[in-house]
């Protein structure tokens, strides 16, 4: 996107709390923003490196749990006579630690699972997410298991001149999510347009060829996994401090599926695709809520996924882009007008 329309969009998004006073609508938008961040991070792996990671929710959950635990504090019996007591730390420390720990998980998983490709890779990532979920469920001393971590403190910022600011209300949380959203977008944009981004695409398109011209495949895949996991961890941290409760259900496989649907619908391997997908599938449930029960909604999403793959395999953003190009270039040859439609 060129500079001025982008700035206009940011201004528009920033102005929303000024004219949307309905707290419930803001809540929907905050959730949408959190999912947009997660979907963008998944797109880095799925869209740019072409690796379908179906364990992505693990990074989201690890970020949420880490951030919550560090800001709540915990004690852990390491040996019969030794108890590690971890004092509560400020929320921003927790949030940053969540990002770091999720990134570390990304590194380990990347190192392990990029030994295999295709279907095997998919299954390793799914297995990993399930193991993490079972640990969260069973390591009750640390995670409280199914009793969940409650009363997670909201984000608190010490601003010079304004004193301490605690994000209890919807509006500040909206701006927080918006800022993290824009930062994630900027990081990913920067990355995919760098040498590393070209390497990602090269090995998505033809891995042996990329390797033969000197692209260190594993290194770049692991790099993508770390950054992707860290951003997903940031989304998880935002979620934990906004919803204020985290339980093992955060690792449900269905959330990964939601992210995949968002990325595929919007357009994988495009910068805006996951955002568009997140907006559609963040708001659609609220629109459908009046007319359809959740089960019916999910059946509809399942059908949408099948229809998208059949009729719009590149997703909405590339299709819209080529439609727009065909429309504005009516003077040119009409041959490519149907391309991507």
């Amino acid at each position, binding site marked *: 996107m060129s500079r001025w329309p982008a700035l206009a969009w940011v201004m528009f998004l920033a102005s929303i709390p000024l004219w949307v006073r309905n707290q419930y609508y803001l809540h929907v938008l905050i959730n949408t923003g959190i999912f947009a961040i997660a979907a963008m991070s998944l797109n880095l792996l799925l869209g740019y490196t072409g690796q379908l990671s179906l364990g992505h929710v693990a990074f989201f959950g690890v970020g949420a749990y880490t951030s919550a635990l560090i800001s709540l504090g915990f004690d852990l019996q390491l040996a019969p006579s030794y108890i590690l007591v971890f004092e509560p730390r400020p929320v921003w420390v927790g949030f940053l630690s969540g990002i770091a720990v999720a990134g570390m998980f990304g590194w380990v998983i990347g190192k392990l699972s990029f030994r295999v490709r*295709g279907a095997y890779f998919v*299954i390793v990532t799914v297995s990993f997410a399930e193991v993490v979920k079972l640990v969260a469920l069973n390591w009750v001393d640390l995670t409280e298991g199914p009793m969940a971590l409650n009363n997670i403190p909201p984000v608190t910022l010490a601003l010079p001149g304004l004193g301490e600011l605690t994000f209890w209300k919807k509006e500040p949380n909206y701006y927080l999510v918006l800022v993290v959203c824009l930062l994630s977008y900027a990081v990913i944009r920067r990355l995919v347009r760098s040498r590393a981004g070209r390497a990602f695409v090269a090995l998505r398109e033809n891995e042996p060829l990329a390797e033969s011209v000197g692209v260190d495949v594993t290194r770049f895949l692991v790099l993508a996994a770390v950054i992707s996991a860290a951003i997903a961890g940031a989304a998880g941290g935002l979620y934990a401090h906004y919803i204020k409760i985290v339980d093992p259900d955060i690792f449900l496989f269905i959330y990964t599926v939601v992210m995949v649907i968002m990325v595929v619908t919007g357009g994988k391997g495009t910068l805006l695709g996951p955002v568009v997908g997140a907006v559609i599938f963040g708001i659609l449930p609220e629109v459908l809520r009046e007319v359809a029960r959740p089960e019916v909604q999910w*059946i509809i999403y399942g059908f949408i996924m099948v229809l998208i793959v059949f009729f719009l395999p590149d997703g909405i953003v590339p299709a819209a882009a080529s439609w727009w190009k065909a429309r504005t270039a009516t003077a040119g040859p009409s041959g490519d007008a149907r391309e991507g439609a």
Partner: protein
Amino acid sequence: MDQFLQHLLNGLVLGGSYALLGIGLTLIFGIMNVVNFTHGELYSFGAYMVFGIVAALHGNFFVALFLAMALGVILGAGIERSLLRPLRGASIDTTMLVMIGAWIAMQNAEQLLWTGVAKAIRHPFPEAPLVIGPVSVSWIRIFVLAVALLLIAGSHFLIRRTRLGTAMRATFQDRETAALMGVNIDAIHTITFAFGSGLAAAAGALLGPVFVVFPTMGDLAALKAFAIVILGGMGNFMGATLGGLILGVVEEMGAGYISSGYRDAMGFLIIIAVLLFRPTGLFVRAERVG
């Protein structure tokens, strides 16, 4: 030691049905190169069909078992014809996304139809277990193991000894040459998927009465089937059989000796370990069907 024998027996009962799941998935995986995310839904479909026929229609338990398998075969053939045939030759990721979509739609249709409440299936076997020396096992479990072993043997016969099985193996080895030799590849794909789906429905129909039936029961089953496929090697029939039995026993042992909370983690730890040390599976010389 007594406890060990008990865990071993329970593990084999579980493992027999796991093997059915694994065989179905490994054939679909091997012959069609499709990661079948609807496999778990066929499993819960089988269980719900038995429940529906026994509870709502007051049908005979054994007839219900047979009908559940037959309906699984029909449903599988329908999925293959409507979703997978148009996508033949598409990348594995594309078909995977379609199968994920189908899986979500099917699971929620079940949720809508039967609600999320877990249901128990009534079966005609006596409650009192059979006691052999130190171990005791309920009659329904013996029945489940026997039927599972029978189905495994039948599948083995089909793949090894019949013309159809030969055509399936030929398709796996070299699709183009098989087509040149007069094998109808479209038909082989439909039959493979229907057959694998029937086995998954059978596994659900068998384990449904042992445990309880609920809409998301297929999720873990599908993931376990993936574990078995990886353990045995893709497209490897014997590997899937042994892999299923091993997974059942490992789960029971893990639940008995380590922690019952981590029972379901065993399969995933196996996947991760196998892929790290022997990515082609435990029982393979080369990837093959049969």
